[in-house]
């Protein structure tokens, strides 16, 4: 197994773990962290792919994609957390299970 394959597999595993946090854990904060772990997993795959280039300098395009992705995911996380805080302030809820009143 090569170095690249190790990180690729780690990316695949962490994507599923993040998905677990998003889908199974009810607390909104866990869900947001799940999304962030999924994002890190995808970034691992991208950076591993960049490392295939022989020589000391990896492919810069996946690196740029990851840097863009990090900023986008920080922005999305910041908004999600603001929404969580607002929901808590308005209703005291920290999960989505307390919402069944819109029928």
């Amino acid at each position, binding site marked *: 197994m090569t170095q690249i394959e190790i990180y690729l597999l780690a990316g695949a595993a962490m994507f599923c773990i993040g998905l677990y946090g998003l889908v199974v854990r009810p607390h909104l904060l866990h869900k947001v962290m799940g999304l962030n772990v999924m994002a890190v997993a995808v970034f691992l*795959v991208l950076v591993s792919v960049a490392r295939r280039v022989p020589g000391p300098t990896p492919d810069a395009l996946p690196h740029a994609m990851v840097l863009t992705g990090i900023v986008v995911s920080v922005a999305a996380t910041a908004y999600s957390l603001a929404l969580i805080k607002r929901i808590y302030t308005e209703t005291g809820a920290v999960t989505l299970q307390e919402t069944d*009143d*819109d*029928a």
Partner: protein
Amino acid sequence: MLDLIQPQLPAITLAVLLFAASAAFLVRFERARAIALVAAGVQVVLVSWITWIVVGQDRVWVYTIGGWGAPLGIDLTIDGVSAVMMLLTAVVGCVVTVYSAGYFPPKDSYRLFWSLWLFLWAALFALFASNDIFNLYVCLELLTISAVGLVAISGERAALFAGMRYILSALAGSLIYLFGVALVYASTGVLDFDLLATQVSIDPTTQAGLALMVIGLLLKTALFPMHFWLPPAHANAVAPVSAVLSALVVKGSFYIIFKLMHVFTGHEMIPGLAELMGILGVCAIIWGSVQAFTQKRLKMMVAYSTVAQIGYLFLLFPLVAAADDIQTAVLAASAGLFHAVSHGLAKGAMFLTAGTIVKAVGSDRLEDMAGLSRLAPIPAFTFAIAGVSMVGLPPSGGFVSKWLYVSSAIETGAWWWAGAVVVGGLLAALYIFKVIALFMGSGKEPLQVGVSNRVITIAPLVLALMSLVIGVFGQPILDLLYPAVESLTAGMMR
């Protein structure tokens, strides 16, 4: 002067929206509203110009940003189909902007609506123009955050929860899509659609990449059974936002799926994918219609109707895959794309007029709206016209797309898809006529209707009439678009 502007049109159109969005962020409500109205007018002019060039001269407009060109840089590519989607966005967007100007009280609490809405518009334009799968990821995120921001802007309890559900699903969809992009880049080394078309080979990495991209997008476009986030988000948002989400935003991710299936010859890359999407589409039609029929709130009903109508879009894929010749395939693809446009107009009208009705009646409950047609005839009439297109009665746009679907299903011998279209139409008739009958009837207690202003009464009617007009002029529109659809469909055939 025009010669100087014309080559730069795509960039100018996008820049106008982005500048307007930034400016609207910095100023007070009235100014922001004025900026949005001006930007909306300018958009209609610029996008009509683009459409005229692309469709009229039958060319694919490739705009190389930064002058690099793919694979190093990013290209914008506007063909007939994306031009039509842009024009739909501009028309619905313009009406929504005018409607919003009359809908929101001039209070600063809704000041940021204008900026978020202009960013959303910019995201849609960028999405329809983009020809690069990673750039599309950024466009999708721009679209998601502006859409969720708009859902939550009212600050009401249900809207906040709906926004939360929406952002979690949409971000998950984006990340699944991005994983797919990573795999596709790993196996092909390119991100540009046109280069991908020449580079793809069938191997496990590319297959998984395409599958992930499609799954992520299906989640974002809310195809059954991944529609769970849509009804609360679309129903609990303020009316102009509901209209934009249902009429335009879900079409964005559908459009990307359409392009992906073309570029990757999707049904060969993943056998059964086209049929699976068709079956899910049928499930969406039935489930969405049944749910719409049982709803007690008007906007919830309209939102479930969107779930059903999204299903029709996905009948396109199995029908194109099953087509023996290019004419039949184009027929099926035109059906889907025509449906995207006619549903965009009709659903936009329906949600806007629902907002007008809710505002007039002071309640979203259907039982409170009995007898509406006497006291607020225009909104009730608008709802009926939009409903006609939703059901698919002639001469509406909905009729044309269903007619095309049925014809192509019969041509290909896959008549059961035609059955799904007909059943869907009947189900739609049930829930639409239930509401219309309610409007025509009389309620337990006399209805109190607060008179609302003329803008929010007339604007939805304009959209509803457009959904009829495109039905009347269906054939010329289809003839005009034939070459563009043909070149996009060729890749999806067996």
